[in-house]
C-alpha cells in the first residue's frame, strides 16, 4: 500500500526487478493461509509472510493488467494454480486511491493476499507488535497499521482506524503542484505519449485545486446565441472599428458596420470621426427601412460613447428602437459584430496584399469585402447567402473581378478627340452600389471613375514605381494639355464620385442652422432685397436724411468730361451680445475703388494714434487718477 513514493524514486530499478520476478515465477510457491476461506470480506487483504507475491482474484481491481506472462504457482497442498496475469491494482482507501504494483492475478484463490516478502523487497518495513501489524515505508514513515483479527492480519483499506497516518498528499496532486499547476489533461497526454522520463503514475482526475481557481479562473463560457431574429431588421448589430493608422482616400479613419441579425446582411460606412456614427445610422435606418418595408426594432451595440450619448438615445426613443448595450468589457456579447469585424479585416488585408495596394485603399477593400460577404455563405443563415435572405433572390457572381487588378476604362467620345487614347489604365477598386458598374481609380489623373466599359486584366497589378517615373517625366506637357478641362474637376471628383466613402461632414443642431439662416436674412445683399423689408427702408431714409441735412451733396447736371462714381447701399445688422438684433444700419457708400488717383483724389492718408500713445495716456490717467472718456462719430458707428 502507498507504494507511490518508492516507485517514483526507483522506477528504473523496478524494471530490473520485474525481470527477476518473471524468472522466478515458475517456482513461486504459495502457502495457503489457514483461514483460506474466512468470512473476511474479499475486499480486504491478508498480510502474510509466506507468499512470494501479492495476489488477488478480483480482476476488477486491476488498474493495469498484463496477461501475457501467464504462469503457475504452487500452493501448500502441492497443486499448482494458474496465474493469469500480473499488473497494478488500484484500491480505494480512506485517504485516496492507492496502487499496489506487481500483483498476480490468480482467479482460483478467494482472498487477496499481501506478500510481506514482496513488501520488504521493495524497501518497506513490516513490524508485527502489540497485536497489530505496522507497515512503514523506506524512510520509516508509518503508512498502515493493521489490527490483528482472529489470528491474521486483514488489511481493509476502507476502515479508517487502520490507517496509522493519513497518507501523504495524493501523488497526482503533488505532481500537479511540482509542475506548476499545469493543467492535468496536458500531463495525462504527456504521459500517454511518453514525452518525459520518470513520469509518475497519475490519476485520471484531479481534486479541485484552490490555487488553480485563483490563478486560472477564467470567464464562464458565453452561452451560444439562444435567440435569433426571425424577421428582417428585427435586430441590428452595430460596431465601429478603427482608427486605422492610414486614412483612406477620403480621409476616413473609422468604419461602422451594421449587420441585420436575420439575414446577416451587412452594411459598411466610413467615418472620419466616431461621432459621425449617429448621423450615418439615421441615414442607414431610412434607407433599409424603405428597402425592406420593415422597421428596425432592436439595436445592439457596445458601450461606446458615441451610442450612449443623450442625443443618440433620444433619437432611438423617438423612433421606438430598443437599444441594447453589452455589459462593459465583454465584447463577447456583441459577438456578431466582432466576428464580422475580424472577417472584414482579414479579407481586406488579403485583398490589399494580393495586389500590393497601398494601405490607403483599405476603405475600398473593406467596402468590397462587405459586398462580397453579402454574397457568400454564412453559417447562421441556412442554405442562403445574406443577399438572398435580404433581397429574396440569388445573387449573381458573374461580374466579379479581382480587387485591385489592372484595368482599362473606355473614355467616352465626348471626352476625347480622335487621337486621344480610347482607354485609360486604372485600378479596379470595387463595385458601384448605385449603378451597375465598376469603380476604377485612375492614379494618373487622380480620379475615381464609375464605368461599365472596363476591360480587366486580372493577373496584372498597378505598377506604382513605373507610374511615379512616368508622372515625373511627363509632367510638363501634361499640364499644358489638360489644364483647362480636367484640372478643376480633379479634387472635386476625387471626393464626389466616391459614393460610399463620403462621410457626413460634421453635424450641426437645427437650432444653429436656423440661427444662421436668420443672420443671412438679416443682411440683404443689395437694394432689391432690402426694399422688401420695412426695417431697411426706414434706416435707408434715415441715412438719406442725414446726408441731406449735412448738405453732403447737391444735385447738378451731368458734366461732360468727368467720370461719375457709383454708389451703393451697404446693410449691416448690429447684434446684441445674446445674438438678438440690436439695430439695422444702412449706409450709402461710394465705390471708392473706381476713384482715380490725381483726378478724384490726391493724398488719402490720415494719421491715427499709436498704441504706445494710448498706453501712455492710460498710464497717466491711472497715475493721476483721471478718468478716460470715449466719444465716437455717430455717423460712423
Amino acid at each position, binding site marked *: 500500500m502507498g507504494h507511490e513514493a518508492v516507485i517514483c524514486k526507483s522506477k528504473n530499478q523496478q524494471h530490473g526487478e520485474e525481470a527477476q520476478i518473471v524468472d522466478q515465477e515458475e517456482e513461486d510457491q504459495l502457502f495457503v493461509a489457514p483461514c483460506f476461506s474466512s468470512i473476511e470480506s474479499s475486499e480486504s487483504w491478508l498480510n502474510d509472510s509466506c507468499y512470494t507475491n501479492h495476489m488477488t482474484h478480483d480482476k476488477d481491481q486491476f488498474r493495469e493488467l498484463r496477461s501475457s506472462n501467464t504462469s503457475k504457482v504452487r500452493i501448500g497442498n502441492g497443486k499448482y494454480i494458474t496465474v493469469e496475469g500480473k499488473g497494478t491494482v488500484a484500491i480505494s482507501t480512506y485517504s485516496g486511491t492507492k496502487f499496489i504494483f506487481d500483483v498476480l492475478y490468480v482467479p482460483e484463490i478467494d482472498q487477496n493476499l499481501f506478500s510481506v516478502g514482496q513488501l520488504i523487497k521493495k524497501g518497506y518495513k513490516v513490524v508485527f507488535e502489540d497485536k497489530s501489524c505496522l507497515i512503514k515505508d523506506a524512510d520509516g514513515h508509518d503508512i498502515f497499521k493493521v489490527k490483528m483479527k482472529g489470528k491474521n492480519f486483514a488489511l481493509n483499506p476502507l476502515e479508517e482506524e487502520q490507517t496509522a497516518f493519513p497518507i501523504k498528499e495524493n501523488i497526482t496532486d503533488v505532481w500537479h503542484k511540482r509542475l506548476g499547476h499545469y493543467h492535468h489533461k496536458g500531463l495525462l497526454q504527456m504521459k500517454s505519449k511518453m514525452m518525459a522520463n520518470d513520469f509518475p503514475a497519475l490519476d485520471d482526475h484531479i481534486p479541485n485545486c484552490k490555487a488553480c481557481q485563483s490563478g486560472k479562473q477564467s470567464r464562464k463560457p458565453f452561452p451560444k446565441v439562444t435567440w435569433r431574429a426571425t424577421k428582417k431588421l428585427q435586430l441590428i448589430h452595430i460596431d465601429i472599428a478603427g482608427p486605422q493608422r492610414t486614412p483612406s482616400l477620403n480621409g476616413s479613419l473609422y468604419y461602422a458596420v451594421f449587420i441585420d441579425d436575420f439575414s446577416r446582411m451587412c452594411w459598411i460606412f466610413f467615418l472620419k470621426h466616431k461621432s459621425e456614427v449617429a448621423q450615418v445610422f439615421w441615414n442607414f435606418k431610412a434607407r433599409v427601412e424603405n428597402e425592406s418595408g420593415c422597421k428596425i426594432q432592436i439595436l445592439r451595440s457596445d458601450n461606446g460613447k458615441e451610442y450612449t450619448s443623450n442625443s443618440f438615445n433620444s433619437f432611438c426613443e423617438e423612433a421606438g428602437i430598443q437599444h441594447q448595450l453589452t455589459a462593459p468589457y465583454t465584447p463577447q456579447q456583441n459577438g456578431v459584430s466582432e466576428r464580422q469585424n475580424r472577417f472584414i479585416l482579414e479579407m481586406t488585408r488579403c485583398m490589399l496584399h494580393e495586389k500590393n495596394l497601398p494601405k490607403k485603399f483599405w476603405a475600398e477593400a473593406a467596402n468590397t469585402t462587405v459586398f462580397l460577404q453579402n454574397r457568400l455563405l454564412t453559417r447562421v443563415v441556412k442554405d442562403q447567402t445574406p443577399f438572398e435572405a435580404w433581397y429574396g433572390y440569388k445573387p449573381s457572381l458573374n461580374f466579379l473581378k479581382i480587387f485591385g487588378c489592372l484595368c482599362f476604362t473606355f473614355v467616352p467620345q465626348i471626352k476625347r478627340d480622335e487621337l486621344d487614347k480610347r482607354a485609360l489604365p486604372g485600378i479596379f477598386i470595387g463595385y458601384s452600389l448605385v449603378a451597375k458598374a465598376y469603380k476604377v481609380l485612375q492614379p494618373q489623373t487622380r480620379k475615381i471613375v464609375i464605368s461599365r466599359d472596363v476591360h480587366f486584366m486580372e493577373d496584372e497589378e498597378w505598377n506604382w514605381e513605373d507610374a511615379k517615373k512616368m508622372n515625373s517625366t511627363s509632367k510638363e506637357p501634361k499640364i499644358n494639355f489638360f489644364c483647362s478641362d480636367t484640372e478643376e474637376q480633379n479634387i472635386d471628383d476625387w471626393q464626389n464620385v466616391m459614393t460610399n466613402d463620403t462621410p457626413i461632414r460634421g453635424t450641426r443642431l437645427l437650432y444653429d442652422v436656423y440661427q444662421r439662416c436668420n443672420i443671412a436674412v438679416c443682411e440683404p445683399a443689395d437694394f432689391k432685397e432690402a426694399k422688401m423689408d420695412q426695417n431697411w427702408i426706414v434706416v435707408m431714409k434715415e441715412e438719406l436724411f442725414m446726408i441731406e441735412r449735412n448738405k453732403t451733396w447737391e444735385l447738378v447736371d451731368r458734366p461732360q468730361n468727368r467720370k461719375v462714381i457709383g454708389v451703393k447701399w451697404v446693410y449691416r445688422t448690429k447684434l446684441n451680445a445674446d445674438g438678438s438684433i440690436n439695430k439695422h444700419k444702412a449706409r450709402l457708400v*461710394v465705390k471708392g475703388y473706381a476713384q482715380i488717383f490725381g483726378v478724384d483724389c490726391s493724398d488719402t492718408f490720415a494719421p491715427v494714434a499709436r498704441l504706445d500713445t494710448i498706453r501712455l495716456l492710460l498710464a497717466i490717467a491711472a497715475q493721476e487718477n483721471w478718468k478716460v472718456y470715449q466719444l465716437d462719430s455717430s455717423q460712423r458707428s
Partner: protein
Amino acid sequence: MNGFLQEEIYVEQPEGYIKEGEEDKICLLKKALYGLKQAPRVWYSRIDEHLQNLGFAKSFSESTLYVKQNGANILIISLYVDDLLVTGNNTSFVEKFKQEMMEVFEMTDLGLMTFFLGMEIMQDEHEVFICQKKYAKEILKKFKLEECKEMSTPMNQKEKLCKEDGTDKIDQAHLEV
C-alpha cells in the same frame, strides 16, 4: 465723417431714392461719403482744424494727440480716426468739451472708456486694467477650441531634459553671432 472735400467728385444718385424729375442729374459731393478714398483724411483735417481752433496744442511727434492747458486744468485728447479719447484733471472741463464736440460733430458719448480697439479697459481708483479676454475667446471660437482644457503652463512640466535625446548635435557656430 463729413469733412469738406478739396476735390470735385461726382456720384450717382442712390438706388431707390432718385429725385423725381431730376433723374438725369448727379450729385456733386461737398462733404465726404463712406468709401471715398480720401474720407479718413478729410475727416482728420476737419477735426484737426476744429481742435486747434479750440485752443488745443497738437503734439509735435504724435499728430493725433492734443493737449489744452487752462491754468491748473489740463485736457488731453487722443484721436483714432472717428474714435476720440478724452481725459483730464477736471471732470467738468471734460464734460464741457464733450458737449461741444457732440454738438459740432454729431458724436456719441460712450461714457467711460471700456472697449477700445479690441482691448477691454477697466478703470478704477488709481488703476487701469486692460485685457483682451473677448478677443482671445473669439480666437478660440474661430478655431473651435472653446471647450479645450485649460493649462497653466502650455508645455509638459515634468519633461526630463537630457543631454542626449537622439537628435543630431546643433552646430554651435550657428548660434554665436
